[in-house]
């Protein structure tokens, strides 16, 4: 279950707070997955008590966009901590789907990759199994193929430390790179933080999803949760 709250001493108009929070959650807590299961209790709430003496923030305030962005970035930080603590997780993985024709398609694809048990198992085993990533993209429940053109798709692993080359291309314009540098792939997959980059090449929308690997420990923890 995900529970959380954000509190602030800034005065924010009640009618503005709900869309502000919903927008922040759609780019943060609604973009995380540990195991693909949705709880009966998930709740994020926010209270703004106005304890500091300043003008109430509403949609016409000069600082409205700034506050909205700050709350969104703050929510992302908090959401990412949940993924870092995913049951049994040894890796924090950013799935970045960019250059999509539609945002919703980028999100569906990012979520599908993030929920694939086979992708997550491969990440745990440090196996550069790009075929599973492509497979997950292929069965994503897209309404149509406006965002997905197999001749334009690029998939890479991206290192999150300072090592180079930072990006290891696995698929270029729909063509698998059969001669990938396995040593470099192995180095990147050993990192505790890594990124899977999917460039759809069909537009300019993007979505980031955060997930973790799936380890033996997950089953140990959940095999006897109730008893």
């Amino acid at each position, binding site marked *: 279950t995900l529970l959380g709250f954000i509190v602030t001493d800034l005065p924010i108009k009640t*009618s503005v707070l709900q869309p502000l929070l919903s927008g922040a959650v759609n780019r943060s807590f609604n973009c995380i997955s540990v195991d693909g299961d949705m709880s009966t209790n998930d709740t994020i709430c926010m209270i703004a008590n106005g304890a500091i003496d300043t003008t109430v923030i509403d949609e016409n305030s000069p600082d409205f966009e700034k506050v909205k962005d700050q709350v969104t970035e703050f929510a992302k930080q908090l959401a990412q901590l949940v993924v870092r603590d995913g049951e049994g997780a040894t890796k924090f993985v950013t799935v970045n789907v960019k250059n999509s024709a539609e945002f919703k398609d980028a999100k569906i694809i990012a979520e599908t990759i993030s929920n694939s048990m086979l992708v997550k198992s491969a990440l745990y085993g440090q196996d550069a199994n790009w075929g599973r990533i492509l497979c997950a993209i292929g069965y994503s429940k897209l309404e149509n193929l406006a965002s997905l053109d197999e001749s334009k798709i690029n998939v890479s692993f991206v290192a999150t430390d300072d090592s180079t080359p930072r990006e290891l291309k696995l698929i270029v314009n729909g063509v698998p790179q059969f001669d990938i540098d396995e040593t470099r792939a192995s180095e990147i997959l050993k990192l505790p933080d890594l990124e899977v980059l999917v460039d759809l090449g069909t537009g300019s929308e993007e979505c980031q999803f955060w997930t973790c690997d799936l380890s033996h420990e997950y089953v140990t*923890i959940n095999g006897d949760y109730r008893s």
Partner: protein
Amino acid sequence: QSAAKSIDKYAQFVPKSGVFPKGYEVASLASGVKKNGALDLGIIRNINKSKKSSAAAVFTTNRFKAAPVQFSRKVLQSRSGEGIDAIVVNSGCANAVTGELGLQDAEKVAGQVNKLVGNSDSTLLMSTGVIGQRLQLEKITAGIDRLFEEKKFSTDFDGWLNLSKSICTTDTFPKLISSKFALSDGTEYTLTGMAKGAGMICPNMA
């Protein structure tokens, strides 16, 4: 190996200090719901009286919404998001799939806190833990009384950290972050956030 990983994550991600927004107090204790005697009940309350608070929330879109979800959504709707002064969190029992009795339990907990803070319909609830079990109401109501009678509310770092621990279940570390931000006229405000979650995580809240 697993323990070693937990210790590393705790050291890496749990802050040792923080800045917290004005006008809030927090308290927590071990009510006895969790079998290991760990913190399992917490309250955050708004004590600022200069303005009515604004509140908003997003909830699970799971068809089977737990009692605290149904209850809190109703409170927010009835108050139009205004004047929410407390959030009660409990861990160990999710009060989910508990039907009418679960809703009554939720109402009792919130009603007790409403009385203690002196504001009706001003309390939201969050529960986490095992699904399909009723709240151990006696332990929770006794715990709430103790928090108020023994004046356990504080504004310091330890208070906030303990509150974030009280909502943990299989979490290996509490998730607490806080930051100061500046508006364009230089006025500073603070955001503090806490979360729990380690498994059953793929939310789609609205």
